[in-house]
């Protein structure tokens, strides 16, 4: 057993497609590490996943991994239409990297997953799959969207079952990390949130990471799957969405007036990461994708 030389160990990152988000994440989603995105439904988790799968195909000089991606989805149906929409805008803004008849969607391998055991089975088959892909465009990104859906129904609320469930978390995480290390992959996992009911004490008040409490849509929430899963990921990002009422100054024909408009405020927070400070930024979701907003 020989130690690795740290000077040769560069941590490669995959760009998210937005320079503001990349700046926040110090380059993008890191390789050889599991990054988790936690948010309630409709916050943009799948958007980031699709966007990342496309941008991973960019050459390394432009922040990508020059790689194809494996997209494991647990919630049905897979958003094919949105992927095509994003693909079109991706192609138009990065036309010089791809030949004319090329379809970046060809390099996203989609697989549906039904249960946690199914996921373990798929992962044991992933090894040879990634090995073979080295001949064409190697797979360097694995997306699991979402991990929570696999565990929400199969397990009762007894201590024995919960123990079995957390044992599965560590097994899955350990296999993902071994894959990530072996092939230098970036792994992106999405997770759902659960509402926190009751006073902010006991297990409800357990603070994990930089934020005292996660808020979205005016509710207090916490990531699903609990403390055990939190120990299995390397970094955690939180997407929040809130409806804000803001004053907007409007120029109208009879002079200035102001309107009160309801605006969707979306923010990305770094909950914990070994290489990132506590930061956050605002973002918006447009037809072209998910982009950070600098105010």
């Amino acid at each position, binding site marked *: 057993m020989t130690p690795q030389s740290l000077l040769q160990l560069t941590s490669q990152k995959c760009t998210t497609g937005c320079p503001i988000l990349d700046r926040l994440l110090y380059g993008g989603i890191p390789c050889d590490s599991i990054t988790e995105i936690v948010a309630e439904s409709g916050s943009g988790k799948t958007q980031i996943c699709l966007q990342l799968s496309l941008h991973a195909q960019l050459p390394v000089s432009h922040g990508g991994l020059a790689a194809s991606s494996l997209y494991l989805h647990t919630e049905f149906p897979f958003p094919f239409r949105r992927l095509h929409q994003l693909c079109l805008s991706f192609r138009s803004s990065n036309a010089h990297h791809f030949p004319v008849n090329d379809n970046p969607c060809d390099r996203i391998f989609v697989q549906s997953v039904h249960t946690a055991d199914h996921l373990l089975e798929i992962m044991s088959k992933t090894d040879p799959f990634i090995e073979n892909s080295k001949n064409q465009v190697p797979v360097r990104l694995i997306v699991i969207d979402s991990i929570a859906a696999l565990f929400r129904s199969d397990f009762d609320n007894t201590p024995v079952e919960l123990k079995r469930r957390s044992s599965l978390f560590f097994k899955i995480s350990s296999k993902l990390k*071994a894959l990530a290390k072996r092939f230098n992959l970036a792994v992106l996992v999405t997770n759902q949130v659960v509402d926190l009911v009751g006073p902010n004490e006991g297990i409800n008040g357990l603070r994990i990471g930089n934020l005292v409490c996660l808020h979205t849509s005016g509710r207090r929430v916490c990531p699903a799957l609990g403390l055990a899963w939190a120990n299995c990921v390397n970094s955690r990002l939180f997407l929040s969405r809130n409806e804000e009422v803001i004053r907007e100054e409007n120029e109208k024909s009879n002079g200035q007036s102001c309107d009160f408009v309801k605006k969707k405020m979306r923010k990305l927070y770094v909950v914990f990461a070994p290489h990132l400070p506590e930061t956050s930024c605002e973002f918006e979701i447009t037809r072209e994708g998910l982009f950070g907003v600098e105010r």
Partner: protein
Amino acid sequence: MEIWRLPISASQRGKLISAGYTSLSSLSSISSSDLARELKVSESEAMNILKVASHSRGSETSNASCSIVEGAQSAWDMLHDEESLMHITTSSADLDNILGGGIHCKEVTEIGGVPGIGKTQLGIQVAVNVQIPNDFGGLGGKAIYIDTEGSFMVERAFQIAEACIEDMSEYNRFLRKDFQECKIKMLPQDILENIFYFRICSYTEQIALINYLDKFLSEHKDVKVIVVDSVTFHFRQDFDDMALRTRVLSGMALKLMNLAKRFSLAVVLLNQVTTKHTEASFQLALALGDSWSHTCTNRIVLYWNGNERYAYIDKSPSLRSASAAYSVTARGIRNSSSSCKRIKMM
């Protein structure tokens, strides 16, 4: 070595043997005046005999220790050893204070906390700080970093190494104005080179590596700290037989303790937190169970208190139970900003 081999005169030897002193150990606890009385010789002669005896025993300590068992030390000698041991600073003066100077060498320290509290940051800080040269109060040693989770980010270690070198230059500038030649020649790259990084992907690899460390450390005697981040991860799956897990873990802990004592280095084990279900309520506890909690010498728990990170000495044979605030900054672990009443130098 026996009496008959001592370079003393035959008559003295005869007197010693007839008085019953046949081995060197029997001469170790007697004073020269008592010996003179027993052998019926002058006190100066007796003192000579004792001097020769202690010299030939080749004792390193000035007060000849009476060792009944091979390798045993008297408590007095151990106290001397302990006082001369160096500590590894954590770069936070408050944290160093409750730790009695820093992370102790020759001991196994377990540090546990929730995700995001700064365990990996502390591990990297310790791996960098062990390399602080002797001139600046450090050990000037190298580090072994065993990464089981993949949390180690090289760029972060580089950042922390850079900040450490900057702090040393500041210290230099303020206090050693006359030593112009004491410029810091260390570069962050040198610091990274002195961290031996191992990445582990299963518990069998973990055990194999810890068994291998014996050989590694005999080849690299300047390693002064072993950081395992985290010791828990691979043991929380796949173990249906808990008794087997306990046995494997205690075997591992024993080996680490042995390494710590033999090579005079510090062992830092980072642990995760789990919930312990007691009847209706729950409690946070460090992972790996109750039997593991007995195996480490010191135990530090990191937790959130309001908006601050705190460290609490949960178990230690020599330190008082105390807690201190610290913070994780871009430069690494530092004192918490609210406790800065005056500017403190390193």
